[in-house]
């Protein structure tokens, strides 16, 4: 596998995360998550040694826990590494800098597993506990299942005071890695941002977009205008997918509610069945969105957006047909 297929996520001090991401990108030749994990540990160590004048064990504990998740192709298979760069785990004072390190996330055969990091972890854990306690299993067999659950888990995480709900999605498959960035977020690194946009759309725009930093009016203006158009395109896709994920989440909740209601009241059974059908349809549309994202085919991307637009237009049309007063002339 080649570079560009490894996803790097960080939580904690933004400067350390962004600096490490930049250093990893610039270090050529990293092809596996094992290499990326070791490089991230080496880079953060050098950074902490420098910041603490040679005494990284004196890093301030309060508010300073920097953890990474690195996923992608490994030496043998796809995998996920958790990286604790400071050795700190929670508020307890006995954790030491020497405890820092990388840990391969073990996933059970024939099932799913994973890792969450950051201040939102408590919210996510409580949500997961609540799901299991109420007898609702989280089943992940397809990429659509995974994306739906990630979406729901992350919105619970957004209840944390330090977390917003501008979600970025990443998908790693044996053939390729893609990410979908919230439209209102701009990466500080222009080149990385352009690569992300080009990688997502599959459009032949790299040459024009390279003018973003050009000190020449014509090239610069063309790049900015083009980026604006592309943002409309990729933003349309983001919101089409996010909207379907929200629908799926609502349908899942309604399905669980109706499973209880219909047990006690027969009249709810047809509705229960209907919601189940709609849930499967929504699941299929999300799977289509995932496949489109992985395909990097601009025509399929456009078709997915247009499909969502058509459904929205139809729903609003029906709503107005039934409930809106005639328009005054």
């Amino acid at each position, binding site marked *: 596998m080649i570079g560009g297929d490894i996803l790097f996520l960080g939580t904690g001090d933004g400067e350390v995360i962004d600096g490490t991401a930049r250093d990893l*990108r610039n270090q050529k030749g990293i092809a596996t998550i094992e290499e990326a994990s070791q490089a991230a540990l080496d880079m953060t160590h050098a950074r902490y040694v420098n910041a603490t004048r040679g005494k990284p064990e004196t890093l301030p504990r309060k508010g300073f826990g920097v953890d990474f998740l690195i996923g992608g192709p490994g030496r043998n*298979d*796809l995998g996920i590494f958790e990286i604790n760069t400071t050795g700190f785990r929670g508020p307890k004072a006995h954790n030491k800098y020497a405890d820092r390190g990388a840990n391969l996330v073990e996933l059970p055969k024939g099932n799913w597993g994973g890792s969450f990091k950051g201040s939102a972890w408590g919210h*996510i854990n409580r949500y997961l506990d609540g799901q299991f306690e109420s007898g609702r299993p989280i089943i992940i067999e397809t*990429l659509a299942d995974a*994306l739906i659950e*990630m979406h729901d888990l992350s919105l619970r995480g957004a209840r944390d005071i330090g977390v917003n709900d501008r979600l970025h999605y990443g998908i790693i*498959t044996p053939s390729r890695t893609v990410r979908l960035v919230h439209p209102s977020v701009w990466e500080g690194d222009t080149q990385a941002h352009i*690569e992300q946009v080009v990688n997502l759309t599959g459009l032949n725009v790299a040459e024009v977009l390279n003018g973003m930093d050009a000190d020449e009016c014509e090239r610069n203006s063309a790049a900015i205008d083009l980026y604006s158009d592309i943002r409309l395109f990729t933003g349309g896709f983001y919101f089409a997918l996010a909207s379907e994920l929200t629908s799926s989440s609502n349908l899942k909740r309604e399905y669980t509610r109706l499973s209880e209601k219909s047990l006690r009241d027969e009249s709810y059974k047809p509705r229960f069945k209907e919601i189940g059908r709609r849930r499967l349809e929504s699941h299929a549309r999300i799977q289509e969105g995932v496949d489109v994202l992985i395909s990097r085919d601009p025509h399929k991307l456009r078709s997915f957006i247009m499909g969502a637009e058509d459904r929205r237009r139809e729903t609003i049309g029906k709503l107005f047909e039934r409930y809106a007063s005639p328009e005054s002339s």
Partner: protein
Amino acid sequence: MTNIGMIGRRSKEGHMEFITAIADSQGTDIKNGLREMLFLRCI
């Protein structure tokens, strides 16, 4: 702080089928004006 997560699915045969990742975009460094840092990167 922030929120990041990765989950993966391993087949019965033992190979990883896929991984999904999620990240929010708010950093801790509000004082440095880095509220909209992007914490999900391809390297």
